[in-house]
């Protein structure tokens, strides 16, 4: 058997307080797409960080084409031909797209080490073109949407002539079309002999792109195999240690009166003439391609941004909130899509995060009732199965998926009457996802109105009663989720196709 490109033997990683990896072995061969599978907090990202020199393992050895190596810094790994797309896009918000793409590999014009901006823009444009996203390379990254940032991050990894490309949940914020473009590139990489490590919580993707898989559970190696020879059920069983019955909850919805009505809402250059309404007990899905303007609409509704024209009616009254605080007072909560920046405060404890929106409820004349606060936080952390030693650890010590759970717990604890979820299951493992779905369904059954923004078509179809489809800031269709096909929705999302029914 040929020597693997990269081999990790018996690697352990101890965070203060957590044993994140416990004697894991992993190898990636030439021309192979190797999926790394596991629940939230299984240790996937930790493994990635070890392979990319960000972390030094507490135990274990790393071999690069048979030779033992020790990566002291990300630069060492980079020099060794390892390119990484990190789970949370590590971009430079004030720098241009081109610069972001080439930050790890300077572009020089000639022999002298002087940057060539022209060449840099040209090459960045070429790479983005190949990825199917012709972004303006001069645009500043902080003006991009989450998905576009993710694409920049991907482009960054492609600038290297890397022998190994590691992708930690690259698709979590991409839409179907971009995922297709990414897969095309992965196939090209594979063809040229590059080894690709691919992490995703979406089985459709793994089945489509991966050859081989390794499963981790609670920081331990569980097993590996060929994707084609293993059934989905089996992988899931390896992953969660039991069988999964059902992905989406049965729902028996009987929508009540209209809770929120949006009429002809427009915001210059972002969205136009958006109208929809949502009823008590109804889950209204929002589907669209990346940057189609769904997030923008939600931000306007909860008062983060202002709209130019149109009207929002909540519980029969026209409203115009000036801040999320005001919206919350009226019973509307918005769970933002960017958990690291908007969703939670990383260097605060789980407990403090969960109770943040409730401060006004948890005090006696301004004083915080510490006991009630803790009990409350523990209750919600438990309901969402947040994996942490206790509620006083900082959120940045949690895995990406568990962070997302904290974010959800936080807003559910606010007990709203209208819940806006923006990409709520991004980066959440399949079991937890099912739990979240069950929870949302349960809330809806109790009479809560839910706006569910998601870029995952199956999720939208599986959860929503009706689906509002966006294309470039306009509503191109409203469909009954039970009586339509994914093709219809995709067509509307791409901008062709007639306006939907209902």
């Amino acid at each position: 058997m040929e020597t693997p490109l990269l081999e990790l033997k018996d690697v352990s990683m101890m965070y203060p307080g957590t044993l994140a990896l416990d004697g894991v072995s992993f190898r990636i061969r030439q021309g192979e797409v190797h999926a790394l599978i596991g629940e939230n907090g299984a240790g996937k990202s930790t493994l990635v960080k070890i392979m990319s020199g960000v972390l030094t393992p507490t135990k274990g050895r790393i071999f690069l084409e048979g030779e033992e190596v020790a990566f002291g810094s990300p630069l060492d790994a980079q020099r060794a031909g390892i390119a990484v797309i990190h789970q949370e896009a590590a971009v430079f918000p004030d720098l241009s797209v081109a610069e972001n793409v080439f930050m790890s590999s300077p572009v020089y014009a000639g022999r002298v080490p002087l940057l060539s901006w022209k060449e840099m823009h040209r090459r960045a444009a070429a790479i983005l073109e190949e990825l199917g996203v012709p972004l303006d390379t001069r645009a500043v990254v902080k003006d991009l949407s989450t998905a576009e940032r993710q694409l920049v991050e991907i482009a960054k990894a492609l600038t290297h002539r890397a022998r190994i490309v590691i992708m930690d949940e690259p698709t979590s914020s991409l839409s179907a079309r971009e995922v297709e473009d990414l897969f095309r590139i992965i196939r090209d990489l594979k063809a040229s002999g590059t080894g690709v490590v691919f992490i995703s919580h979406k089985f459709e993707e793994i089945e489509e792109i991966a050859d081989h898989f390794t499963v981790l559970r609670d920081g331990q190696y569980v097993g590996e195999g060929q994707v084609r020879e293993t059934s989905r059920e089996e992988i899931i069983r390896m992953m969660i240690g039991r069988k999964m019955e059902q992905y989406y909850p049965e729902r028996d919805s009987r929508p009540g009166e209209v809770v929120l009505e949006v009429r002809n809402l427009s915001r210059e250059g972002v969205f136009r003439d958006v109208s929809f309404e949502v009823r008590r007990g109804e889950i209204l899905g929002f589907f669209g391609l990346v940057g189609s303007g769904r997030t923008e609409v939600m931000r306007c509704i909860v008062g983060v941004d202002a709209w130019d024209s149109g009207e929002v009616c909540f519980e029969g009254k026209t409203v115009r909130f000036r801040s999320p605080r005001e919206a919350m007072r009226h019973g509307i909560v918005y769970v933002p899509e960017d958990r690291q920046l908007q969703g939670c405060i990383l260097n605060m404890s789980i407990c403090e995060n969960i109770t943040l929106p409730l401060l006004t409820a948890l005090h006696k004349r301004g004083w915080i009732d510490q006991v009630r606060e803790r009990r409350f936080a523990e209750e919600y952390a438990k309901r969402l199965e947040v994996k942490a030693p206790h509620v006083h650890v900082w959120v940045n010590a949690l895995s990406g998926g568990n962070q997302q759970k904290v974010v959800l717990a936080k807003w559910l604890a606010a007990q709203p009457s209208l819940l806006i979820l923006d990409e709520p299951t991004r980066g959440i493992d399949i079991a937890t996802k099912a739990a979240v779905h069950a929870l949302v369904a349960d809330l809806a059954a109790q009479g809560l109105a839910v706006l569910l923004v998601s870029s995952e078509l199956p999720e939208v179809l599986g959860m929503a009663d009706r689906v509002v489809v966006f294309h470039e800031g306009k509503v191109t269709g409203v469909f009954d989720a039970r009586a339509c096909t994914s093709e219809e929705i995709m067509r509307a999302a791409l901008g062709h196709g007639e306006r939907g029914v209902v």
Partner: protein
Amino acid sequence: MKNVRQGIRIGAVLQRWEVILSILLLTIMVVNGILSPYFWDVRNLFNTTFNFTEKSIIALSMALVIITGSIDISVGSIVALSSFCMGLVASYGAPVPVIVLVGLLVGTVAGMLNGFLVGYLRIPAIAVTIGTMSFFRGIPQGILGDKAFTTYPEEFAWLGQGYVGGTLVPFQLVVFLALALVVGLVLHYTIFGRMVYAVGRNEVAAVFSGIPAKRVKFAVFTLNGLFSGISSVLLTSRILSTRPNIAQGFELEAITIAVLGGVAITGGFGGIPGVVIASFVIGFIRFGMGLMNVPGRVMNLVTGALLIVAIVIPEFIAFMKRRRETDIVEGGNV
């Protein structure tokens, strides 16, 4: 499972910091006592607090400003402006309560202006306060020019110079400790305090969680103005006169005290007990050196070095305990 990482809870970090500061304070007291026969004298120890309580009072509110992730370098100028207004009303024969009220009010209003620009207009605090620093002091400078206000009523002097009920305890010191208690309780045990920390650690997430970040910032700057006003009342009363160059350089001293007290200059961390201890650390170090006639410049050298060393000590202890792990937090903070 018990929490292994001490660094995770603010409480734990604070304790460690305060312990270090307290040890430092004790060391200073002992060393000074050995070096100067005048140090361990109750009267002297109480009297020397006159030299720092005014700055320490500002350091309390400055701590809140810094915790929200801002900074205010206009405090010295607020003191000057508020002292000027007190002098103005005093020159028209206003009684003591009115003078004091004017002082507090002017400080508060000046703080509100800063708070408005930083909180509501979202201009970076350092930019705003660099401007208001000249602006606030420019007003008395322009109107008073080379003149001074010296006509304060005699009873006014007690506030800044008096002692509490026949004891050796200066009234100023009592004011400082009382304010420290209040601010400490508010910061550490109320929802307002929690909001201050939340805004300092991640303003965006705080806003999305329904924290009125603008109002919080406005409030801490206003408080800083009010405390500068209080400081101004005490200082003016202590020197019984007002010139436009009063309280020059207070900003850096207040920031120094807050930072030495463990308030993270990047925002989000720190607490009031540390600030109080740090006031005494700096105050007693300067007092000790003063007793030994160390020139002011050299005192600055020592406090400057202390500032750096105080930050290095816990790092060093942590280093000795275990080799530091890589400090890369997962992902980026965009």
